[in-house]
């Protein structure tokens, strides 16, 4: 992780520490930040403390649920990859991939299905996050759920 990533985008965009990200609020804060920091703004010499390129990058990243989940984990000091691959998730992803390959015309149907799973995963993730009592166990659960979100995000990208 590079030094530039010290700022957490949840702080940067003044977002509540939860999922899903409020996209309207994200956009509005993004516009506000660019008004202050974009190199085209004359007053940026005085107030431009944050690199406009970095703001752009975080803005793009935060629109994806799995990225936001990762920054949420970072906020709580949880870093790294899940210690074991979640077999169940892998099977599920393969099944969805197969459905897409066999019936490309049913993209919309598959997408709706993925979105349902996405919402379930987000709920499970938030539940696990609120019960960080036993840190070691929960850390692994959270990382696994984050991985699952990543797979689902990739699938959504392929569907659209």
């Amino acid at each position, binding site marked *: 992780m*590079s030094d*530039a990533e010290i700022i957490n985008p949840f702080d940067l965009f003044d977002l509540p520490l939860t999922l899903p990200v409020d996209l309207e609020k994200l956009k509005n804060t993004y*516009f506000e930040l*660019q*008004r202050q920091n*974009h*190199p*085209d*703004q*004359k*007053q940026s010499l005085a107030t431009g403390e944050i*690199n*406009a*390129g*970095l703001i*752009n*990058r975080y*803005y*793009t990243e935060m629109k994806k649920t799995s990225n936001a989940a990762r920054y949420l984990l970072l906020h709580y000091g949880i870093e790294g990859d899940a210690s074991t691959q979640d077999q169940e998730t892998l099977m599920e992803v393969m099944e969805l991939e197969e459905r897409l390959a066999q019936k490309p015309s049913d993209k919309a149907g598959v997408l709706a299905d993925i979105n349902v799973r996405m919402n379930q995963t987000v709920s499970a993730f938030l539940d696990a996050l609120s019960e960080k009592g036993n840190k070691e166990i929960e850390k692994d659960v959270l990382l696994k759920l984050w991985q699952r979100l990543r797979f689902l995000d990739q699938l959504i990208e392929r569907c*659209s």
Partner: protein
Amino acid sequence: MVLQIMEPGQTGSHQNNNSIKAVGIDLGTTHSLVSIVDEQGPKILEIEGATIVPSIVALAEDQFQVGRDAKALQKKGHQHVAASVKRLMDPDIHQLKEALPKLDYLPSEAGEMARFTLGNRLSNPIEISAEILKHLKIKTQEILGEEINHAVITVPAYFSERARGATRLAAKLAGWKVLRLISEPTAAAIKFGLDQKKNGLFLIFDLGGGTFDLSILNLENNIFQVLATGGDTLLGGDDVDRLVMIDLQQRYQLETLSQTEEQGLLQVSEDLKKQLTQGEKAEKNVSFRGQNMSFSIRFEHFLTLLRPFLTKIETLLDQTFDAANLSKDTIQACVLVGGSTRLKPVQSLLEQYFGKKPLADLNPDHVVAEGAAIQARALTHGSDSLLLDVIPLSLGLETMGGIAEKIVPRNSPIPAQVTQEFTTYQDDQTAMSIHVVQGEREMASDCRTLGRFSLKGIPPLPAGFARIEVTFDVDADGLLTVSAQEKTTGVYQAIEVKPGHGLTTAEMEHMVYSGFKAAQDDMTIRVKEQEWVKLQFVLDICQKILKAQKDNLSYDTYHQLRELVTETKRLTKKDGSADLFRAYTAKLENYFRHSEEQSS
């Protein structure tokens, strides 16, 4: 009422950024325009009696002719003419020979720029573009009566990194300080958005003479957020002329045309096309090969000829919406920009595609230059509006197996700063070669090469242990800088690479130091002359005031003015500079205005 008299020093301090005059330039394939914002808003400068300047350069009697004069020479079949050079600003583009009209350029090695024979030397597109920009600068200064150095220049949204770099260099050679390169459809959106005060998603459909651009923009409270761009830098109204010309050639059995004949027939084709923006039939009588000929075409037939052209446009529309992940139904309106949107078949296609009429209430020829002028004003005077643009093509690196890994995907907002970590794949590997590419294809060899460099001095480590951080920095003009550093040992080693323009170092040096130096000197002399004349004029008035108004002026004002007049008279044209003369003119004008107030 007595006005406050300013100390000579104070006048200078008022010359802050707010007094910088900056123009917007639409540097088009076939025509270029200059616009400036005054109290009434943006206006197009009338250069040599017209708002549009042909983007043509000719060499006659060892002198460059630009614009109207060059076009006249081209019409006469003059040999040394360069036109449509904008299509050749990316050195890789000229390889697509079939897509290009028959331009009179010389074939060159892959990745090198095209060359034109003008007189006894070869000129590249950057030099020719610089000649056009220099011409625009001289004319702008003549019209506005002062030195103008700052400009916002527009480029097609779909222009590659190299073509943008080439445009910036051409402007620099012409003596312009480029405030910002902005995309043509974005410039149009700025003018449109500010005029109509609308919010929502809009598609800017920009079909010019040589390039086709699409931009999807979100307009929200004076923020112009580009969401996606698409297009084709080799598609435009010129292609329609060519389609008509080939058809005429077949129907009127005109095999093998000489260069002059081809020019003539192309002109006929263009005239017929323009006639068909109204009416069902077009006809043109000209003398051709020594006899009077009447060329005609029916609209129905014209539509059939245009079919492949229209299909291409429709495909690009689909692709742009796909890439943006947006449905065409989310678009509030499609805004027409560029002269070629006057074509009826293009307008009907769009009406069908969106299920509503496209907006044609802007002047499609002027809107880009006007938008650029508004942005130029915003950058020099500050503004409520903000432009958030994107990069049109993905930027990446070649990785194992020749695969292009995208680091900054297309439609990413700029400025962009992305860092990615790579590692070594062999034990004790101490160097790594980095190949920077641009494009959407999977294999690096199918993308455009922007540059290659190698990172040396990686500490010997087992494969996969080194941590090489590669950073891509894209600035607000869409220009890229790549740097790399090895992080494990704390040894900082960074190399920066700025992609080149497909020119040899010798050529670059020649361009920067020789021919253009002389031209810039000429321009400096010209501006100095203008400022001197202005100063002498004001000096004369002040001397008259001193004589005639002596009793009406206060003691202080009289003596201060007399001192200043004496001081000014000591200046000589030879030793002074344009800036110095301008400063004295300002000082004198201040006293002059003040004395007018006092005596009235």
